[in-house]
């Protein structure tokens, strides 16, 4: 029996599945928004604003779900500061969860500041706050939000790999898998939110979604092929294996087919593909988390 089967489950259940789902979207949304903000047309910055808004709301929800999942939620701040010295926990950089907590904090913070700046720049908020989105400061804040976002979207899988649990600790491919799936989900959500408002950006998001889905598919195949046969049998030859297959079919292959044949369902093609990507991303996280929990 593989060594990972001598361990105990941390009982990361539905709170964790939901948090992994939202974290993937929030992190990748910030990264996509930063790309658009820094390298896209100025006219398309309103779409980047949607990305920073998704990242801001998503990181707040992520933090809430993580706190609720703690056995001592009132001690949530111990994730950011050592309770005895009040030093930042990132001093212990080799503890993945400490890095993740800070990445989430920075992701939410930088995304929020950029969002506020861009809203002030375009009207709804006092123009005095527009400096947050202008000049060097605006560029730096957007870049930092993107970096924190891409880190957080991939960190979730690395966190799982840095355990001794069945499946999670048996493969190094979970980080890139959840990152790619996160990018696909964030592209899909932004497509749904900003549909037809900028044809050029919609095309770009469609291509990014298709590329992310292709990478997700490739990584799932590599993961399954390289996994120890005993681990595969004990963890995935059950309902969770079926769930993984459904997630790949529904959330990856069908949307890829729809991207390949964009007129297949008429005007419904794009929203259908986007919704399937989001559902598939959730099912993928369910399969990855709960299969190990059940082992």
């Amino acid at each position, binding site marked *: *029996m593989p*060594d*990972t089967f*001598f*361990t*105990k*489950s*941390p*009982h*990361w259940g539905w709170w964790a599945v939901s948090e992994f789902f939202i974290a993937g979207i929030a992190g990748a949304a910030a*990264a*996509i928004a930063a*790309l658009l903000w820094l*390298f*896209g*047309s100025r006219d398309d910055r309103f779409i980047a604003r949607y990305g920073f808004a998704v990242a801001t709301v998503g990181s707040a929800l992520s933090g809430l779900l993580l706190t609720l999942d*703690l*056995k*001592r939620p009132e*001690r*949530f701040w*111990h*994730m950011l500061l*050592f*309770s*005895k010295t009040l030093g930042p*926990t990132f001093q*212990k950089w*080799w*503890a*993945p*969860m*400490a890095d*993740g*907590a800070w990445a989430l904090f920075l992701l939410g913070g930088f995304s929020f500041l950029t969002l506020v700046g861009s809203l002030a720049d375009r009207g709804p908020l006092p123009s005095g706050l527009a400096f947050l989105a202008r000049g060097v400061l605006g560029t730096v804040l957007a870049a930092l939000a993107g970096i924190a976002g*891409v880190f957080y979207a*991939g960190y979730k*899988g*690395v966190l799982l*790999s*840095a*355990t*001794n*649990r069945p499946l*999670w*600790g048996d493969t*190094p491919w*979970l*980080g*890139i898998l959840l*990152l*790619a799936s996160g990018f696909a989900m964030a592209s899909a959500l932004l497509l749904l939110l900003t549909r037809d408002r900028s044809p*050029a*950006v919609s095309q*770009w998001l469609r*291509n*990014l979604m298709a*590329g*992310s889905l292709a*990478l997700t598919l490739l990584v799932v195949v590599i993961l399954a092929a390289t996994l120890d046969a005993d681990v595969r049998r004990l963890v995935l030859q059950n309902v969770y294996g079926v769930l993984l297959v459904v997630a790949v079919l529904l959330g990856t292959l069908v949307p890829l087919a729809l991207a390949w044949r964009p007129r297949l369902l008429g005007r419904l093609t794009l929203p259908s593909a986007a919704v399937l990507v989001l559902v598939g991303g959730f099912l993928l996280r369910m399969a990855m988390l709960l299969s190990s929990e059940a082992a």
Partner: protein
Amino acid sequence: MPEPMGFFTDTSVCIGCKACEVACKAWNQLPARNGGKVTLSGVSYDNTVALSGIQWRHVKFIEQFSPDRSTGRWLMMSDVCKHCVQAACLEVCPTGAIIRTEFDTVVIQSDVCNGCRACIAACPFGVIEINPETNTAMKCTLCYDRMQAGMVPACAQACPTQSIQFGPISELRQRAQARLEQLQAQGVTQARLYGHDESILGGLNSFYLLLDEPEVYGLPSNPQLPSQKAAPASALSAAGAVALGLLGLAGLRKQRMDRLAAEERERRQQAPETEG
């Protein structure tokens, strides 16, 4: 600085009396059962079943019988936290709740732990669990409070057969080696030491003399540190981020080139009209 202290558990003389479990619970004031209910495992005379947040010592009854039950044996092993020299739980704990003491043992500070459970997923031996009364992760402290007072841990004190021996690690290793040689001279060729040297997580400060393969006792043969797994996972994740970033940048560049080309076409179309 005191020298590293620990346990040497000689399973060949364990009789499964569970005095160590009782002593541990009594000293550490651990509840008998979750919610006070006493239950029977239904599959073994071992009714405490496993290490947990309220069960810091656990005597395993490994029942090996032939299908016709004509031959059989019970292997007994008093299991406990291994107080690894390279401790996975300590490595991943984000809050600093898990510390290494001056005795080279590993202790969870209950007033710091917030119950994130990273240590549970990281421990390669399945030692740690949440204590339902405190809602924090808990495990053997190697009786840190007793050691500070110069006392022997409760379990070792209570063990009637000296299966659990406590002392300086260097001394325990010598005792373990002598016992192993004695058993092998007596023909017990399956006897072996587990965790006595640096090959397993830099050495276990609670190590064992076993009478069969480690897996038979529920011990992993090659436990690993989480950090060994984080590095390749991070590298792959970074490679994925670069690939997706380049895909996004290439798309934006194409978009800009298309826009410039369209503007150029428009300008050319307008130029003859202006000239005309």
